Protein backbone atom coordinates (compact mmCIF):
# COMPACT_ATOMS: atom_id res chain seq x y z
CA UNK A 1 0.00 0.00 0.00
CA UNK A 2 2.85 2.28 0.89
CA UNK A 3 4.60 1.62 -2.42
CA UNK A 4 1.35 2.41 -4.21
CA UNK A 5 1.27 5.80 -2.48
CA UNK A 6 4.90 6.39 -3.38
CA UNK A 7 4.33 5.49 -7.01
CA UNK A 8 1.32 7.74 -7.47
CA UNK A 9 2.26 10.59 -5.15
CA UNK A 10 2.70 12.99 -8.09
CA UNK A 11 -0.72 12.06 -9.41
CA UNK A 12 -2.29 12.61 -6.00
CA UNK A 13 -0.66 16.02 -5.63
CA UNK A 14 -1.94 16.90 -9.08
CA UNK A 15 -5.48 15.81 -8.22
CA UNK A 16 -5.52 17.89 -5.04
CA UNK A 17 -4.17 21.00 -6.78
CA UNK A 18 -6.57 20.55 -9.69
CA UNK A 19 -9.55 20.23 -7.36
CA UNK A 20 -8.70 23.46 -5.59
CA UNK A 21 -7.93 25.35 -8.80
CA UNK A 22 -11.10 24.10 -10.48
CA UNK A 23 -13.21 25.28 -7.54
CA UNK A 24 -11.62 28.73 -7.81
CA UNK A 25 -11.84 29.25 -11.54
CA UNK A 26 -14.89 27.23 -12.57
CA UNK A 27 -16.96 30.31 -13.38
CA UNK A 28 -14.23 32.37 -15.01
CA UNK A 29 -13.96 31.79 -18.75
CA UNK A 30 -10.61 33.47 -19.15
CA UNK A 31 -8.97 31.42 -16.43
CA UNK A 32 -10.61 28.24 -17.70
CA UNK A 33 -9.22 29.02 -21.14
CA UNK A 34 -5.77 29.61 -19.65
CA UNK A 35 -6.09 26.37 -17.73
CA UNK A 36 -6.91 24.42 -20.89
CA UNK A 37 -3.93 25.94 -22.70
CA UNK A 38 -1.73 24.97 -19.73
CA UNK A 39 -3.07 21.43 -19.86
CA UNK A 40 -2.27 21.19 -23.57
CA UNK A 41 1.24 22.56 -23.11
CA UNK A 42 1.64 20.22 -20.12
CA UNK A 43 1.02 17.23 -22.36
CA UNK A 44 3.58 18.36 -24.92
CA UNK A 45 6.02 19.28 -22.14
CA UNK A 46 5.40 15.83 -20.58
CA UNK A 47 6.35 14.34 -23.91
CA UNK A 48 9.69 16.17 -23.53
CA UNK A 49 9.91 14.86 -19.98
CA UNK A 50 9.42 11.32 -21.25
CA UNK A 51 11.96 11.50 -24.07
CA UNK A 52 14.57 13.81 -22.52
CA UNK A 53 13.96 13.43 -18.80
CA UNK A 54 13.61 9.65 -18.84
CA UNK A 55 15.74 8.49 -21.77
CA UNK A 56 18.04 11.46 -22.37
CA UNK A 57 16.81 11.94 -25.94
CA UNK A 58 16.82 15.71 -26.38
CA UNK A 59 14.19 15.93 -29.08
CA UNK A 60 13.52 19.38 -30.45
CA UNK A 61 10.67 18.07 -32.58
CA UNK A 62 7.97 17.39 -30.00
CA UNK A 63 5.69 20.13 -31.32
CA UNK A 64 5.95 18.53 -34.75
CA UNK A 65 4.50 15.33 -33.27
CA UNK A 66 1.74 17.36 -31.63
CA UNK A 67 1.16 18.98 -34.99
CA UNK A 68 0.71 15.55 -36.60
CA UNK A 69 -2.00 14.79 -34.05
CA UNK A 70 -3.68 18.15 -34.53
CA UNK A 71 -3.62 17.98 -38.32
CA UNK A 72 -4.85 14.38 -38.32
CA UNK A 73 -7.93 15.20 -36.31
CA UNK A 74 -8.46 18.49 -38.17
CA UNK A 75 -8.43 16.74 -41.54
CA UNK A 76 -10.76 13.89 -40.60
CA UNK A 77 -13.23 15.96 -38.58
CA UNK A 78 -13.37 19.24 -40.49
CA UNK A 79 -13.03 17.84 -43.98
CA UNK A 80 -14.57 14.38 -43.81
CA UNK A 81 -17.03 14.98 -40.95
CA UNK A 82 -15.76 11.93 -39.10
CA UNK A 83 -16.18 11.84 -35.31
CA UNK A 84 -13.45 13.33 -33.10
CA UNK A 85 -12.83 9.82 -31.70
CA UNK A 86 -11.41 8.80 -35.08
CA UNK A 87 -9.19 11.85 -34.87
CA UNK A 88 -8.08 10.75 -31.40
CA UNK A 89 -7.06 7.31 -32.62
CA UNK A 90 -5.05 8.86 -35.44
CA UNK A 91 -3.54 11.49 -33.13
CA UNK A 92 -2.34 8.73 -30.80
CA UNK A 93 -1.08 6.37 -33.53
CA UNK A 94 0.39 8.50 -36.32
CA UNK A 95 3.01 10.40 -34.28
CA UNK A 96 4.64 7.20 -32.91
CA UNK A 97 4.53 5.66 -36.39
CA UNK A 98 6.70 8.57 -37.52
CA UNK A 99 8.75 8.76 -34.34
CA UNK A 100 9.80 5.09 -34.09
CA UNK A 101 11.63 4.87 -37.43
CA UNK A 102 13.01 8.38 -36.89
CA UNK A 103 14.31 7.24 -33.52
CA UNK A 104 15.99 4.17 -35.03
CA UNK A 105 17.85 6.57 -37.31
CA UNK A 106 18.83 9.24 -34.81
CA UNK A 107 19.17 7.62 -31.39
CA UNK A 108 22.54 6.15 -32.42
CA UNK A 109 23.90 9.68 -32.45
CA UNK A 110 25.53 11.44 -29.54
CA UNK A 111 23.31 13.78 -27.54
CA UNK A 112 24.11 16.97 -29.42
CA UNK A 113 23.93 15.55 -32.91
CA UNK A 114 20.67 13.92 -31.95
CA UNK A 115 19.22 17.24 -30.81
CA UNK A 116 20.27 18.87 -34.07
CA UNK A 117 18.91 15.98 -36.12
CA UNK A 118 15.49 16.34 -34.48
CA UNK A 119 15.64 20.12 -34.91
CA UNK A 120 16.33 19.66 -38.60
CA UNK A 121 13.52 17.11 -38.77
CA UNK A 122 11.14 19.59 -37.14
CA UNK A 123 12.03 22.29 -39.61
CA UNK A 124 11.75 19.96 -42.58
CA UNK A 125 8.35 18.86 -41.28
CA UNK A 126 7.35 22.51 -41.01
CA UNK A 127 8.18 23.05 -44.70
CA UNK A 128 6.29 19.91 -45.67
CA UNK A 129 3.20 21.20 -43.81
CA UNK A 130 3.43 24.51 -45.62
CA UNK A 131 3.87 22.82 -48.97
CA UNK A 132 1.05 20.39 -48.25
CA UNK A 133 -1.41 22.25 -50.51
CA UNK A 134 -5.10 21.64 -49.91
CA UNK A 135 -4.40 18.56 -47.83
CA UNK A 136 -2.82 20.49 -44.95
CA UNK A 137 -4.23 23.87 -45.89
CA UNK A 138 -0.71 25.03 -46.80
CA UNK A 139 0.51 28.21 -45.17
CA UNK A 140 -3.05 29.17 -44.16
CA UNK A 141 -3.82 26.04 -42.19
CA UNK A 142 -7.19 24.48 -41.46
CA UNK A 143 -10.04 26.24 -39.71
CA UNK A 144 -13.53 25.18 -38.68
CA UNK A 145 -12.45 22.19 -36.59
CA UNK A 146 -15.57 21.16 -34.62
CA UNK A 147 -15.58 21.23 -30.81
CA UNK A 148 -15.68 17.92 -28.94
CA UNK A 149 -19.34 16.82 -28.81
CA UNK A 150 -19.05 15.75 -25.17
CA UNK A 151 -17.14 18.85 -24.09
CA UNK A 152 -18.59 21.85 -25.86
CA UNK A 153 -18.38 24.08 -22.79
CA UNK A 154 -15.08 25.36 -21.46
CA UNK A 155 -15.55 23.76 -18.05
CA UNK A 156 -16.10 20.33 -19.60
CA UNK A 157 -13.11 20.85 -21.86
CA UNK A 158 -11.06 21.80 -18.81
CA UNK A 159 -11.99 18.44 -17.26
CA UNK A 160 -11.24 16.52 -20.47
CA UNK A 161 -7.86 18.21 -20.94
CA UNK A 162 -6.72 17.71 -17.36
CA UNK A 163 -8.16 14.19 -17.41
CA UNK A 164 -5.81 13.48 -20.29
CA UNK A 165 -2.89 14.94 -18.31
CA UNK A 166 -3.80 12.75 -15.32
CA UNK A 167 -3.94 9.62 -17.46
CA UNK A 168 -0.50 10.38 -18.88
CA UNK A 169 0.79 11.10 -15.37
CA UNK A 170 -0.48 7.70 -14.16
CA UNK A 171 1.04 5.88 -17.15
CA UNK A 172 4.35 7.68 -16.70
CA UNK A 173 4.39 6.90 -12.97
CA UNK A 174 3.82 3.25 -13.83
CA UNK A 175 6.56 3.26 -16.40
CA UNK A 176 9.15 4.88 -14.14
CA UNK A 177 8.48 2.21 -11.50
CA UNK A 178 8.89 -0.75 -13.86
CA UNK A 179 11.85 -2.74 -15.22
CA UNK A 180 11.40 -0.89 -18.50
CA UNK A 181 11.62 2.43 -16.69
CA UNK A 182 14.68 1.34 -14.73
CA UNK A 183 16.38 0.31 -17.95
CA UNK A 184 15.48 3.69 -19.45
CA UNK A 185 16.85 5.49 -16.45
CA UNK A 186 20.10 3.52 -16.64
CA UNK A 187 20.69 4.24 -20.29
CA UNK A 188 20.03 7.91 -19.71
CA UNK A 189 23.03 8.22 -17.44
CA UNK A 190 25.20 5.51 -18.96
CA UNK A 191 24.57 3.65 -22.19
CA UNK A 192 27.31 1.06 -21.69
CA UNK A 193 25.96 0.23 -18.25
CA UNK A 194 22.55 -0.39 -19.78
CA UNK A 195 24.03 -2.65 -22.45
CA UNK A 196 25.84 -4.60 -19.72
CA UNK A 197 22.47 -5.08 -18.01
CA UNK A 198 21.28 -6.70 -21.23
CA UNK A 199 19.13 -3.75 -22.29
CA UNK A 200 18.38 -3.44 -26.01
CA UNK A 201 19.26 0.23 -26.08
CA UNK A 202 18.06 1.23 -29.58
CA UNK A 203 14.71 -0.46 -29.00
CA UNK A 204 14.13 1.08 -25.58
CA UNK A 205 15.03 4.56 -26.77
CA UNK A 206 12.90 4.27 -29.86
CA UNK A 207 9.94 2.95 -27.88
CA UNK A 208 10.28 5.84 -25.44
CA UNK A 209 10.43 8.42 -28.22
CA UNK A 210 7.40 6.77 -29.85
CA UNK A 211 5.48 6.93 -26.56
CA UNK A 212 6.44 10.57 -26.09
CA UNK A 213 5.29 11.32 -29.64
CA UNK A 214 1.95 9.74 -28.84
CA UNK A 215 1.57 11.92 -25.75
CA UNK A 216 2.43 14.98 -27.84
CA UNK A 217 -0.14 13.83 -30.41
CA UNK A 218 -2.76 13.71 -27.66
CA UNK A 219 -1.88 17.31 -26.82
CA UNK A 220 -2.23 18.20 -30.49
CA UNK A 221 -5.65 16.57 -30.66
CA UNK A 222 -6.87 18.66 -27.72
CA UNK A 223 -5.26 21.74 -29.26
CA UNK A 224 -7.11 21.35 -32.53
CA UNK A 225 -10.51 20.88 -30.91
CA UNK A 226 -9.95 23.69 -28.42
CA UNK A 227 -8.64 26.41 -30.75
CA UNK A 228 -10.69 25.16 -33.74
CA UNK A 229 -7.83 26.19 -36.03
CA UNK A 230 -4.47 24.64 -36.84
CA UNK A 231 -1.78 26.16 -39.02
CA UNK A 232 1.96 25.73 -39.51
CA UNK A 233 2.64 28.50 -36.98
CA UNK A 234 0.36 26.97 -34.32
CA UNK A 235 2.63 24.15 -33.17
CA UNK A 236 5.77 25.07 -35.06
CA UNK A 237 9.48 24.70 -34.24
CA UNK A 238 9.34 27.59 -31.76
CA UNK A 239 6.76 25.69 -29.70
CA UNK A 240 9.14 22.72 -29.64
CA UNK A 241 11.66 25.00 -27.97
CA UNK A 242 9.12 26.51 -25.53
CA UNK A 243 7.93 23.12 -24.32
CA UNK A 244 11.54 22.05 -23.93
CA UNK A 245 12.11 25.07 -21.70
CA UNK A 246 8.92 24.27 -19.76
CA UNK A 247 10.10 20.72 -19.08
CA UNK A 248 13.61 21.78 -18.12
CA UNK A 249 12.51 24.66 -15.92
CA UNK A 250 10.02 22.47 -14.09
CA UNK A 251 12.28 19.42 -13.91
CA UNK A 252 12.28 17.06 -16.88
CA UNK A 253 13.00 13.89 -14.91
CA UNK A 254 9.91 14.09 -12.75
CA UNK A 255 6.22 13.60 -13.47
CA UNK A 256 5.15 16.96 -12.06
CA UNK A 257 8.07 19.01 -13.39
CA UNK A 258 6.89 19.52 -16.96
CA UNK A 259 3.39 20.40 -15.72
CA UNK A 260 4.77 22.95 -13.27
CA UNK A 261 6.98 24.37 -16.01
CA UNK A 262 4.06 24.64 -18.43
CA UNK A 263 1.91 26.41 -15.86
CA UNK A 264 4.69 28.73 -14.77
CA UNK A 265 5.85 29.85 -18.20
CA UNK A 266 2.29 30.29 -19.48
CA UNK A 267 1.45 32.45 -16.46
CA UNK A 268 4.76 34.32 -16.73
CA UNK A 269 3.75 35.20 -20.26
CA UNK A 270 0.43 36.47 -18.96
CA UNK A 271 2.03 38.75 -16.37
CA UNK A 272 5.32 40.09 -17.71
CA UNK A 273 4.90 43.30 -19.71
CA UNK A 274 4.51 42.46 -23.37
CA UNK A 275 7.17 44.65 -24.87
CA UNK A 276 10.50 44.50 -26.56
CA UNK A 277 12.13 43.68 -23.20
CA UNK A 278 10.07 40.50 -22.76
CA UNK A 279 12.91 38.32 -24.05
CA UNK A 280 15.21 39.64 -21.31
CA UNK A 281 12.80 38.44 -18.63
CA UNK A 282 12.28 35.13 -20.35
CA UNK A 283 15.91 34.39 -21.16
CA UNK A 284 17.08 35.71 -17.79
CA UNK A 285 14.57 33.57 -15.90
CA UNK A 286 15.68 30.49 -17.79
CA UNK A 287 19.37 31.06 -17.06
CA UNK A 288 18.61 31.80 -13.41
CA UNK A 289 16.67 28.57 -13.01
CA UNK A 290 19.35 26.51 -14.74
CA UNK A 291 22.18 28.02 -12.70
CA UNK A 292 20.35 27.79 -9.38
CA UNK A 293 18.75 24.39 -9.85
CA UNK A 294 19.98 22.48 -12.90
CA UNK A 295 17.38 19.76 -12.42
CA UNK A 296 14.54 22.26 -12.66
CA UNK A 297 12.21 23.51 -9.97
CA UNK A 298 11.42 19.96 -8.88
CA UNK A 299 15.16 19.59 -8.33
CA UNK A 300 14.88 22.27 -5.64
CA UNK A 301 13.72 19.55 -3.28
CA UNK A 302 17.04 17.71 -3.55
CA UNK A 303 19.02 20.96 -3.51
CA UNK A 304 17.31 21.98 -0.27
CA UNK A 305 17.52 18.44 1.07
CA UNK A 306 21.25 18.23 0.37
CA UNK A 307 21.82 21.64 1.93
CA UNK A 308 20.01 20.63 5.11
CA UNK A 309 21.81 17.31 5.17
CA UNK A 310 25.24 18.88 4.67
CA UNK A 311 24.71 21.38 7.45
CA UNK A 312 23.57 18.51 9.65
CA UNK A 313 26.60 16.38 8.77
CA UNK A 314 28.94 19.28 9.47
CA UNK A 315 27.60 19.36 12.98
CA UNK A 316 27.87 15.60 13.32
CA UNK A 317 31.28 15.34 11.78
CA UNK A 318 33.10 16.67 14.79
CA UNK A 319 31.64 14.02 17.04
CA UNK A 320 31.83 11.21 14.50
CA UNK A 321 35.47 11.78 13.61
CA UNK A 322 36.74 8.91 15.67
CA UNK A 323 34.30 6.40 14.20
CA UNK A 324 35.09 7.32 10.60
CA UNK A 325 38.76 7.12 11.33
CA UNK A 326 38.37 3.56 12.51
CA UNK A 327 36.31 2.39 9.56
CA UNK A 328 38.69 4.09 7.13
CA UNK A 329 41.59 2.27 8.70
CA UNK A 330 39.71 -1.00 8.38
CA UNK A 331 39.11 -0.41 4.66
CA UNK A 332 42.71 0.55 4.01
CA UNK A 333 44.08 -2.63 5.51
Amino acid sequence: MNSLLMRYRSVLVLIVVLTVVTMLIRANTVWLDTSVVIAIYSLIALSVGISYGQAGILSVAQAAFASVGAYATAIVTARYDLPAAVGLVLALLLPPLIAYPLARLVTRLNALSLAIATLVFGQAFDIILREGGDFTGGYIGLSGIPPLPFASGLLQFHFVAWGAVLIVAVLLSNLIDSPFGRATNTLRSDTLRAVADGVNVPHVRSAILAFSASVAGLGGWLYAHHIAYIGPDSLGPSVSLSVLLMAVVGGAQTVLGPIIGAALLTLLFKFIPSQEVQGMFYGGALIAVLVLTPNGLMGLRTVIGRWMKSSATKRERATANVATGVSAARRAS
Partner: protein
Amino acid sequence: MYELLEFSSRGVLLGVTYGLLAFPISLLFIATDTVDLAVGAYAVLAGAVAMFVGGSVNPAVGILTGILVGVLASAAIGSISLMLGRRQKGDPLVLVLASFGFAIFLESVVLTLFGKDPFIRQPFTYFWNIGGIRISPQAGVNVVVGLLLIAAVYVLLYRTSWGRDVRASANNERAALLAGIPVRALRFSAFMLAGLLAGIAGVLVLYTSGMDFASGMHLTLAGFGAAIVFGLHGPLRGFFGGLAIGVVETISAGYANGGLASLVPLLFIFLVLTLGRGGRQGPAGVRA
Protein backbone atom coordinates in the same frame (compact mmCIF):
# COMPACT_ATOMS: atom_id res chain seq x y z
CA MET B 1 26.95 24.00 -67.34
CA TYR B 2 28.13 27.56 -67.09
CA GLU B 3 25.14 28.24 -64.87
CA LEU B 4 26.14 25.39 -62.59
CA LEU B 5 29.60 26.89 -62.33
CA GLU B 6 28.13 30.24 -61.34
CA PHE B 7 25.83 28.63 -58.76
CA SER B 8 28.74 26.67 -57.30
CA SER B 9 31.05 29.65 -57.04
CA ARG B 10 28.31 31.82 -55.49
CA GLY B 11 27.61 28.90 -53.16
CA VAL B 12 31.23 28.91 -52.07
CA LEU B 13 31.06 32.64 -51.36
CA LEU B 14 27.85 32.18 -49.34
CA GLY B 15 29.47 29.21 -47.62
CA VAL B 16 32.36 31.36 -46.43
CA THR B 17 29.88 33.16 -44.16
CA TYR B 18 28.58 29.85 -42.79
CA GLY B 19 32.12 28.59 -42.37
CA LEU B 20 33.03 31.70 -40.37
CA LEU B 21 30.08 31.02 -38.05
CA ALA B 22 31.12 27.38 -37.78
CA PHE B 23 34.53 28.38 -36.40
CA PRO B 24 33.40 29.49 -32.95
CA ILE B 25 31.01 26.54 -32.67
CA SER B 26 33.54 23.81 -33.40
CA LEU B 27 36.27 25.60 -31.47
CA LEU B 28 34.06 25.64 -28.37
CA PHE B 29 33.15 22.04 -28.92
CA ILE B 30 36.80 21.05 -29.04
CA ALA B 31 37.65 23.10 -25.97
CA THR B 32 34.64 22.49 -23.75
CA ASP B 33 32.59 19.63 -25.21
CA THR B 34 29.50 21.84 -25.36
CA VAL B 35 27.68 23.94 -27.89
CA ASP B 36 26.87 27.60 -27.43
CA LEU B 37 23.57 28.42 -29.13
CA ALA B 38 24.12 32.14 -28.56
CA VAL B 39 26.94 32.34 -31.12
CA GLY B 40 24.59 33.82 -33.71
CA ALA B 41 23.37 36.32 -31.12
CA TYR B 42 26.96 37.54 -30.52
CA ALA B 43 27.30 38.00 -34.26
CA VAL B 44 24.07 40.04 -34.43
CA LEU B 45 25.07 42.09 -31.40
CA ALA B 46 28.50 42.79 -32.89
CA GLY B 47 26.95 43.70 -36.23
CA ALA B 48 24.37 46.04 -34.68
CA VAL B 49 26.97 47.79 -32.53
CA ALA B 50 29.37 48.05 -35.47
CA MET B 51 26.64 49.69 -37.52
CA PHE B 52 25.47 52.20 -34.93
CA VAL B 53 28.86 53.14 -33.51
CA GLY B 54 30.26 53.08 -37.04
CA GLY B 55 27.49 55.36 -38.22
CA SER B 56 27.98 57.92 -35.47
CA VAL B 57 31.77 57.78 -34.96
CA ASN B 58 33.66 56.06 -37.77
CA PRO B 59 33.44 52.61 -39.36
CA ALA B 60 36.76 51.28 -38.06
CA VAL B 61 35.91 52.24 -34.46
CA GLY B 62 32.48 50.71 -35.02
CA ILE B 63 33.93 47.42 -36.18
CA LEU B 64 36.33 47.22 -33.25
CA THR B 65 33.65 48.14 -30.71
CA GLY B 66 31.27 45.61 -32.26
CA ILE B 67 33.80 42.79 -31.99
CA LEU B 68 34.69 43.84 -28.44
CA VAL B 69 31.02 43.74 -27.41
CA GLY B 70 30.77 40.28 -28.96
CA VAL B 71 33.68 39.13 -26.81
CA LEU B 72 32.12 40.66 -23.68
CA ALA B 73 28.83 38.89 -24.38
CA SER B 74 30.59 35.56 -24.76
CA ALA B 75 32.44 36.23 -21.51
CA ALA B 76 29.03 36.32 -19.84
CA ILE B 77 28.10 32.85 -21.07
CA GLY B 78 31.61 31.72 -20.18
CA SER B 79 30.98 32.74 -16.58
CA ILE B 80 27.62 31.00 -16.63
CA SER B 81 29.31 27.84 -17.87
CA LEU B 82 31.77 27.99 -14.99
CA MET B 83 28.93 28.41 -12.52
CA LEU B 84 27.11 25.46 -14.07
CA GLY B 85 30.28 23.40 -14.17
CA ARG B 86 30.73 23.77 -10.45
CA ARG B 87 27.21 22.65 -9.62
CA GLN B 88 26.54 20.13 -12.28
CA LYS B 89 28.86 17.46 -13.57
CA GLY B 90 28.12 15.61 -16.69
CA ASP B 91 25.12 16.85 -18.59
CA PRO B 92 26.48 19.25 -21.22
CA LEU B 93 22.93 19.85 -22.43
CA VAL B 94 22.22 22.10 -19.44
CA LEU B 95 24.73 24.61 -20.77
CA VAL B 96 23.24 24.27 -24.26
CA LEU B 97 19.86 25.23 -22.82
CA ALA B 98 21.34 28.08 -20.78
CA SER B 99 23.03 29.42 -23.89
CA PHE B 100 19.67 29.26 -25.62
CA GLY B 101 18.22 31.40 -22.84
CA PHE B 102 21.10 33.81 -23.33
CA ALA B 103 20.35 33.96 -27.06
CA ILE B 104 16.75 34.99 -26.27
CA PHE B 105 18.07 37.55 -23.81
CA LEU B 106 20.51 39.09 -26.32
CA GLU B 107 17.88 39.17 -29.06
CA SER B 108 15.68 41.22 -26.77
CA VAL B 109 18.60 43.52 -25.87
CA VAL B 110 19.33 44.17 -29.55
CA LEU B 111 15.63 44.80 -30.27
CA THR B 112 15.35 47.25 -27.37
CA LEU B 113 18.56 49.15 -28.11
CA PHE B 114 18.72 49.10 -31.90
CA GLY B 115 15.16 48.55 -33.08
CA LYS B 116 13.49 46.18 -35.50
CA ASP B 117 14.82 47.53 -38.81
CA PRO B 118 17.46 45.52 -40.64
CA PHE B 119 21.14 46.34 -40.04
CA ILE B 120 23.20 46.61 -43.18
CA ARG B 121 26.30 48.34 -44.55
CA GLN B 122 27.14 48.44 -48.23
CA PRO B 123 30.39 50.31 -48.80
CA PHE B 124 31.04 48.87 -52.27
CA THR B 125 28.95 50.20 -55.14
CA TYR B 126 30.90 48.51 -57.94
CA PHE B 127 31.45 44.86 -58.78
CA TRP B 128 34.34 42.73 -59.89
CA ASN B 129 33.80 40.77 -63.08
CA ILE B 130 35.51 37.43 -62.75
CA GLY B 131 35.04 35.20 -65.78
CA GLY B 132 31.66 36.75 -66.49
CA ILE B 133 30.46 36.40 -62.90
CA ARG B 134 29.86 39.71 -61.16
CA ILE B 135 30.95 39.59 -57.56
CA SER B 136 30.97 42.23 -54.85
CA PRO B 137 34.47 43.06 -53.54
CA GLN B 138 33.00 42.32 -50.09
CA ALA B 139 33.00 38.63 -51.03
CA GLY B 140 36.73 38.95 -51.64
CA VAL B 141 37.19 40.52 -48.20
CA ASN B 142 35.23 37.64 -46.67
CA VAL B 143 37.38 35.01 -48.37
CA VAL B 144 40.61 36.70 -47.29
CA VAL B 145 39.43 37.10 -43.67
CA GLY B 146 38.19 33.51 -43.70
CA LEU B 147 41.56 32.17 -44.86
CA LEU B 148 43.44 34.31 -42.34
CA LEU B 149 41.21 33.01 -39.54
CA ILE B 150 41.73 29.41 -40.66
CA ALA B 151 45.45 29.94 -40.42
CA ALA B 152 45.22 31.71 -37.08
CA VAL B 153 42.93 29.08 -35.51
CA TYR B 154 45.13 26.30 -36.83
CA VAL B 155 48.29 27.85 -35.40
CA LEU B 156 46.56 28.56 -32.10
CA LEU B 157 45.20 25.04 -31.66
CA TYR B 158 48.09 22.98 -32.99
CA ARG B 159 51.19 25.14 -32.57
CA THR B 160 50.80 26.85 -29.18
CA SER B 161 50.82 25.58 -25.64
CA TRP B 162 47.36 27.10 -25.16
CA GLY B 163 46.03 24.92 -27.96
CA ARG B 164 47.75 21.82 -26.61
CA ASP B 165 46.30 22.40 -23.14
CA VAL B 166 42.84 23.07 -24.52
CA ARG B 167 42.86 19.86 -26.50
CA ALA B 168 44.23 17.93 -23.55
CA SER B 169 41.60 19.21 -21.13
CA ALA B 170 38.79 18.50 -23.59
CA ASN B 171 40.09 14.96 -24.04
CA ASN B 172 40.26 14.13 -20.38
CA GLU B 173 39.41 16.80 -17.91
CA ARG B 174 40.55 14.92 -14.83
CA ALA B 175 43.94 14.01 -16.30
CA ALA B 176 44.43 17.62 -17.40
CA LEU B 177 43.66 18.85 -13.90
CA LEU B 178 46.15 16.38 -12.47
CA ALA B 179 48.75 17.59 -14.94
CA GLY B 180 48.31 21.08 -13.55
CA ILE B 181 46.46 22.53 -16.54
CA PRO B 182 44.14 25.38 -15.44
CA VAL B 183 41.05 23.83 -17.01
CA ARG B 184 38.57 26.46 -15.82
CA ALA B 185 40.63 29.39 -17.08
CA LEU B 186 41.06 27.60 -20.40
CA ARG B 187 37.34 27.01 -20.73
CA PHE B 188 36.69 30.64 -20.07
CA SER B 189 39.28 31.79 -22.61
CA ALA B 190 37.78 29.44 -25.18
CA PHE B 191 34.39 31.15 -24.75
CA MET B 192 36.02 34.55 -25.21
CA LEU B 193 37.81 33.37 -28.32
CA ALA B 194 34.52 32.04 -29.68
CA GLY B 195 32.97 35.46 -29.00
CA LEU B 196 35.82 37.09 -30.91
CA LEU B 197 35.33 34.82 -33.91
CA ALA B 198 31.55 35.26 -33.81
CA GLY B 199 31.99 39.02 -33.57
CA ILE B 200 34.21 39.07 -36.65
CA ALA B 201 31.70 36.88 -38.49
CA GLY B 202 28.90 39.25 -37.41
CA VAL B 203 30.69 42.30 -38.78
CA LEU B 204 31.30 40.51 -42.09
CA VAL B 205 27.62 39.51 -42.29
CA LEU B 206 26.69 43.14 -41.62
CA TYR B 207 28.80 44.24 -44.58
CA THR B 208 27.70 41.37 -46.82
CA SER B 209 24.01 40.56 -46.58
CA GLY B 210 22.90 42.37 -43.46
CA MET B 211 20.81 41.00 -40.62
CA ASP B 212 18.09 42.02 -38.20
CA PHE B 213 17.54 41.59 -34.48
CA ALA B 214 15.94 38.17 -35.01
CA SER B 215 18.69 36.71 -37.25
CA GLY B 216 20.65 35.21 -34.35
CA MET B 217 19.09 31.76 -34.29
CA HIS B 218 19.23 31.51 -38.08
CA LEU B 219 22.95 32.31 -38.02
CA THR B 220 23.59 29.85 -35.19
CA LEU B 221 21.82 27.08 -37.06
CA ALA B 222 23.63 27.88 -40.31
CA GLY B 223 26.94 27.75 -38.44
CA PHE B 224 25.94 24.60 -36.58
CA GLY B 225 24.93 22.85 -39.78
CA ALA B 226 28.28 23.79 -41.28
CA ALA B 227 30.21 22.68 -38.22
CA ILE B 228 28.52 19.33 -37.94
CA VAL B 229 28.53 18.15 -41.55
CA PHE B 230 32.11 16.89 -41.55
CA GLY B 231 32.37 16.35 -37.81
CA LEU B 232 32.52 18.81 -34.95
CA HIS B 233 36.06 17.91 -34.02
CA GLY B 234 37.95 20.20 -36.37
CA PRO B 235 37.45 23.89 -37.04
CA LEU B 236 38.88 23.43 -40.51
CA ARG B 237 36.28 20.78 -41.24
CA GLY B 238 33.68 23.25 -40.04
CA PHE B 239 34.88 25.79 -42.57
CA PHE B 240 34.64 23.30 -45.42
CA GLY B 241 31.28 22.13 -44.08
CA GLY B 242 30.15 25.74 -44.50
CA LEU B 243 31.31 25.77 -48.10
CA ALA B 244 29.50 22.47 -48.76
CA ILE B 245 26.23 23.73 -47.32
CA GLY B 246 26.57 27.02 -49.20
CA VAL B 247 26.96 25.14 -52.48
CA VAL B 248 24.08 22.75 -51.75
CA GLU B 249 21.85 25.66 -50.78
CA THR B 250 22.69 27.74 -53.84
CA ILE B 251 22.31 24.89 -56.29
CA SER B 252 19.02 23.79 -54.81
CA ALA B 253 17.73 27.39 -54.81
CA GLY B 254 18.84 27.67 -58.41
CA TYR B 255 17.26 24.49 -59.71
CA ALA B 256 14.42 23.59 -57.36
CA ASN B 257 11.29 25.52 -56.58
CA GLY B 258 9.63 26.93 -53.51
CA GLY B 259 9.76 24.90 -50.34
CA LEU B 260 11.67 22.08 -52.00
CA ALA B 261 14.65 24.44 -52.40
CA SER B 262 14.68 25.03 -48.64
CA LEU B 263 14.05 21.37 -47.90
CA VAL B 264 17.10 20.08 -49.78
CA PRO B 265 19.79 21.67 -47.53
CA LEU B 266 17.93 20.43 -44.44
CA LEU B 267 17.73 16.91 -45.84
CA PHE B 268 21.42 17.14 -46.74
CA ILE B 269 22.35 17.95 -43.13
CA PHE B 270 19.97 15.29 -41.80
CA LEU B 271 21.37 12.58 -44.06
CA VAL B 272 25.00 13.48 -43.41
CA LEU B 273 24.25 13.45 -39.69
CA THR B 274 22.38 10.16 -39.54
CA LEU B 275 24.30 8.18 -42.15
CA GLY B 276 27.74 9.68 -41.57
CA ARG B 277 30.13 8.68 -38.82
CA GLY B 278 30.64 12.12 -37.31
CA GLY B 279 27.84 12.19 -34.78
CA ARG B 280 27.82 8.61 -33.56
CA GLN B 281 28.34 7.70 -29.98
CA GLY B 282 30.64 4.98 -28.67
CA PRO B 283 30.64 1.53 -30.23
CA ALA B 284 28.54 -0.46 -27.81
CA GLY B 285 25.28 1.40 -27.76
CA VAL B 286 25.02 1.75 -31.46
CA ARG B 287 24.32 -1.67 -32.78
CA ALA B 288 20.74 -2.69 -33.26
